[in-house]
């Protein structure tokens, strides 16, 4: 592929204007790449309606019938790229993308013909939040990855897992690599604790110990561990409060039921839709944040540290890798269990270990500046020019030299 025209690159993932972690990294990457003259960016997103604030054309996948873009990708590609060859870059779990990566498994349809015709290269930035049996990725994920031309992982851990799973030769052929997510540290910056607490609730006082937890209502977020930990902490720490930021109170977990069963309803504050600036205030208000979830990366961990608030992190999968060497404190799982259709190995924690870690941090607090400095490499201001932009430049040079 040689061309003097900007290379069309269509991002495929959660809608860029959605607040999900996948939507967010999709939005950030697409926005940054759209500033590169080598590329022309489009975005095919699930669950959104587009936004005039985005600096690239957006196409929508409606959330019906469990589709991940099968029904629209051909029309979208012709509209976006025309006759130009280009790239589709997915930012999704591989489990959703076998149809995309391996069209030979599709029934004989127009979609199979289209996807098999190689109008575009397949690049993927893969969230991997767990390993499978035998410390390898599950078979469907492996098969999907083999259909890609270029593979990028979120973390060194997931890069190594991919290599173990598909083999060194296949990884080399796909230029397997990794880069972490960036965050805007101009927005996620330490603020006044008092102001943050006032923003959250007038029931949180200056001399309270505030534990924070941020995540969606999904099984892997392990809200049970968080509530069990805080319930135990309450017997040891006076004036304890818990702030939970979540998308829905009830889905996999019931936050009201957890609060009731653990006797925490009177100290619980729940927030739902906060802007990034408000989130930054809320993180700054906390004494510590808890993160037992299985994560591909772990935005809330980076955000908490960037706001100067120490984070306690489950030492497993992406988060365990992405925050190694930072100010995060790690808690190791005591066991693992296999879960979901996708044979995901999930960590099991002992809440007592989280209590111990929290008490340790409360006794000897980390300096705010130290927390923030330990994630400065994740500031987009640094990460983009030093790492991620170089990746896109190199990929473009491979194609056009």
């Amino acid at each position, binding site marked *: 592929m040689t061309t003097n025209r900007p290379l069309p690159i269509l991002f495929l993932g959660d809608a860029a204007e959605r607040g999900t972690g996948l939507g967010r990294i999709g939005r950030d990457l697409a926005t940054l790449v759209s500033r590169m003259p080598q590329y022309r960016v489009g975005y095919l997103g699930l669950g959104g309606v587009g936004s005039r604030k985005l600096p690239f054309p957006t196409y929508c996948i409606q959330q019906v019938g469990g589709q991940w873009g099968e029904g629209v990708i051909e029309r979208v590609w012709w509209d976006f790229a025309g006759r130009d060859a280009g790239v589709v870059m997915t930012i999704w779990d591989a489990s959703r993308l076998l149809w995309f990566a391996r069209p030979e498994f599709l029934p004989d349809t127009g979609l199979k013909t289209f996807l098999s015709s190689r109008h575009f290269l397949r690049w993927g930035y893969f969230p991997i939040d767990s390993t499978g049996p035998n410390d390898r990725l599950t078979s469907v994920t492996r098969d999907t990855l083999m259909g890609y031309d270029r593979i990028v992982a979120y973390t*060194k851990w997931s890069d190594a897992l991919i290599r173990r799973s598909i083999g060194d030769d296949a990884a080399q052929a796909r230029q397997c690599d*990794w*880069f*972490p997510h960036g965050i805007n540290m101009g927005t996620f910056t330490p603020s006044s604790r008092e102001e943050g607490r006032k923003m959250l609730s007038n029931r949180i006082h200056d001399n309270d110990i505030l534990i924070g937890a941020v995540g969606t209502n999904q099984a892997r977020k392990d809200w049970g561990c968080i509530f069990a930990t805080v319930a135990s902490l309450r017997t040891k720490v006076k004036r304890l409060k818990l702030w939970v930021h979540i998308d829905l109170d009830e889905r996999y977990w019931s936050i009201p039921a957890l609060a009731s069963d653990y006797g925490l309803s009177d100290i619980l504050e729940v927030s739902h839709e906060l802007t990034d600036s408000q989130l930054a205030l809320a993180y700054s208000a906390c004494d510590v944040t808890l993160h037992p979830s299985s994560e591909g990366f772990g935005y809330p961990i980076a955000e908490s540290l960037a706001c100067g608030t120490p984070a306690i992190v489950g030492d497993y999968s992406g988060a365990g890798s992405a925050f*190694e*060497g*930072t100010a995060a404190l790690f808690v190791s799982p005591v066991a693992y269990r296999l879960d979901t259709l996708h044979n995901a190995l999930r960590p099991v924690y002992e809440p007592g270990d989280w209590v111990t870690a929290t008490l340790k941090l409360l006794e000897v607090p980390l300096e705010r500046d130290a927390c923030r400095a*330990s*994630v*400065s*490499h994740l500031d987009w201001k*640094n*990460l983009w*020019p*030093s*790492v991620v932009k170089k990746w896109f430049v190199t990929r473009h040079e491979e194609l056009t030299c």
Partner: protein
Amino acid sequence: MLSLIIPTMGQPRMQECLATWHDKSVGLLQTLVVDNSVYNRGVLGSMRYGYEQSDTPYLAFIHDDVLMHEQAWDLRVLAEFDDPSVGVVGFGGALQLGHDDLYRTPYRLTNLARQGYCSNTDDAERHGTRETGSCGVATLDGFVLIARRSLIDTMGGFPVETWPPMHHYDHYLCLMARRHGYRVRMCGVRCVHLGGMTTVGMPEYKEYMRTTRYGTDVAAHVDGHVQLYETFRDVLPARVTR
């Protein structure tokens, strides 16, 4: 064609070392000894002084304790510069500067280490591997740095006011070369780097460092690494495959 620029604090074998460079050369050499025994410009300041005082197209900044053993070394060096893309040549270099994860993980000084060092000095195996030929490298060791004048012009000279006076000047020059599209070459010229002639333990050196904004050699070393890390995000980590 070539200037020899030798910063020195007057170590006893300096003249002997310098004589070997002349004895083993074929062409004419412009020589400038930068005497720092009374007023210490620092290595970087001496490089700037030499750049400003000389007028040749190629400038060889050499330590005052290097004995030349290879006949016609200058022809070999100038042959490297026949390739217009070559900006800097040296006699000891490393294939990689900076760990692959340098900017993907939190800053750590050791992540800026060089890897894959090669040279043809007498003790080459002690420092890395022996290379008698020439090869592309990511960075050079400061004991011999031979630069194209036009590269230094493009760089805007040497950052004497903002860079540590005695540290990382070699990486600075090589990374600037990369930034401006030049290549860096290691030429396996036979020589001996005596080393240890001007050491950080010397009272004069300690006194000199106290006058700088760094205060101590250790501080300059540590702060210098941070400067290197921040200044060269566009070209680090630097790696050349053989």
